């Protein structure tokens, strides 16, 4: 629990909390980027440099953009005139989330001593990652490619303007 | 091929860039406050009132005939006639402007006042550095501020001024001759019609009647060309 850890954790959690509570949706998206940047810092702290940077590249550079585009596209940056920002079942949601956290936290704290497995920081180079990807993980890689392609096609089809519905 | 036109364009700007270090043609800037474009003789900016001699008031050619005031398209001239008279350049007593204001914040520099003036009294200046922070004090010019000497006129429009001088000298000579003749006639026949020559002399030679000036600017227009031959001619006839 070094101070750096605390700061980063605070940063991340505050961002996450803001992302789900703020009124203005664009603010939520920006808060999300803060939370994700915090996570990237965690990854760096955990010596996963490549993952950390990839997180920034993909989440801040692309996913955040996608989210704000979606917000602008659906014109949901203004709070709805009728009703609040929360759904009708908000209380249930909060209770469930709290319960989940309670269970998880309890489990973590219970098993904390068992997790003690201090190991030296591994020096993961991109070269190693490349070798692993091209070697053991080549099949998952191809599957990811397939997934990405189908996601691309699927998302485009879903989001694309169908000719039939054009006025 | 894609990009060919772009390269051609790049070559053109590069030529201008390189050329700007070696040729005047490619670096046309005139650095204004220090350098100036060579003055062009015909340039006009705002009107001024010409006076002969040293005293702007005594030598002022304007006789407050108010033609320019009437003809001025944007109506920027304001003239009040004087109650008394002063002698003009031929020595005849004339009305003069008690007040002659030009609001150069309204003036459109069209030169029509110059064209219609039968007395060669109003001309166009070339002064343009008139920017001021004072809207009324700086831009509403009274007759003193408007007065410029004939020398100034010669300096800015030499050809035109020479012609004007020649014409005026001619008129003056004519008027003097007439006066002399009148005096002689008077001396010869003191009884016969004493009022007539005086009345004639009292009128400006160039504009005897209000319709008269219509011809005069025409003459001015025809005589204005820069042709040096004509100017010489004018000068010769003047001297």
């Amino acid at each position, binding site marked *: *629990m*070094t101070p750096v850890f605390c700061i980063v*954790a605070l940063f*991340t*959690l505050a961002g996450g909390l803001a*992302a*789900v509570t703020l009124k203005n*949706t664009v603010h*939520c*998206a920006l808060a999300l980027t803060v*939370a*994700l940047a915090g996570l990237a810092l*965690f990854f760096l702290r*955990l*010596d*996963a440099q*490549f*993952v950390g940077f*990839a*997180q920034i590249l*993909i*989440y801040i550079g692309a*996913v955040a953009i*996608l*989210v704000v585009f*979606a*917000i602008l*596209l*659906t014109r949901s940056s203004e709070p*709805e005139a009728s*009703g*609040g*920002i*929360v*759904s009708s*079942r*908000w209380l*249930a*949601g*909060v209770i*469930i*989330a*709290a319960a989940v*956290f309670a269970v*998880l*936290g309890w489990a*973590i*704290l219970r098993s904390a001593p068992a997790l003690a*497995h201090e*190991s030296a920081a*591994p020096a993961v180079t991109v070269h*190693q990652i490349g070798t692993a990807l091209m070697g053991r993980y080549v099949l998952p890689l191809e599957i990811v490619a397939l*997934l*990405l392609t189908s*996601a*691309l096609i*699927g*998302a485009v089809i879903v989001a694309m*303007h169908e000719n039939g*519905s054009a006025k | 091929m894609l990009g060919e036109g772009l390269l051609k364009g790049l070559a053109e700007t590069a030529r201008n860039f390189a050329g700007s270090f070696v040729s005047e043609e490619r670096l046309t800037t005139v650095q204004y406050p220090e350098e100036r474009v060579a003055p062009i003789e015909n340039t006009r900016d705002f009107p001024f009132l010409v006076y002969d001699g040293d005293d702007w008031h005594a030598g002022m050619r304007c006789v407050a005939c108010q033609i320019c005031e009437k003809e001025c398209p944007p109506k920027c001239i304001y003239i009040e006639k004087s109650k008394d008279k002063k002698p003009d350049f031929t020595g005849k007593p004339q009305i003069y402007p008690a007040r002659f204001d030009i609001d150069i914040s309204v003036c459109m520099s069209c030169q029509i006042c110059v064209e219609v003036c039968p007395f060669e009294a109003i001309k166009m200046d070339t002064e343009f550095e008139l920017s001021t922070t004072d809207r009324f004090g700086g831009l509403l010019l009274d007759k003193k501020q408007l007065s410029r000497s004939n020398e100034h006129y010669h300096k800015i429009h030499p050809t035109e001024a020479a012609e004007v001088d020649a014409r005026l000298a001619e008129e003056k000579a004519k008027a003097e001759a007439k006066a002399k003749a009148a005096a002689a006639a008077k001396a010869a026949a003191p009884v016969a019609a004493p009022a007539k020559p005086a009345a004639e002399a009292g009128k400006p030679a160039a504009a005897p009647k209000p319709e008269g000036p219509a011809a005069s600017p025409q003459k001015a227009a025809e005589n204005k060309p820069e042709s040096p031959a004509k100017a010489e001619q004018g000068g010769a006839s003047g001297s």
Partner: protein
Amino acid sequence: MNPLPGYLLVAALLFAIGLAGALTRRNAILVLIGIELMLNAANLNLIAFWRYGPHPEALTGFLFAIFSIAVAAAEAAVGLGLVISIHRHLRTTDIDAMNRMKG
């Protein structure tokens, strides 16, 4: 002290926040933001377990995290695409309204 439980706690908290967001917000995009948060919390767990796990040199958790990021990105693209598509037809991003209108 071993820092692993700290990371896990943060991840759990983030997960809970994401869950709460996903369950409580009316705006479908914010629901997706909540889900993103949950996925990232899971990612943090993956990396933390890899780092403090028994065989960090095997890179399993590490690569799993990369794949997870890729999958999450694909999920976000499709999910948001769906929201846009629904919005085009129902003119709303309100989950409650969607429920009402879908019948």
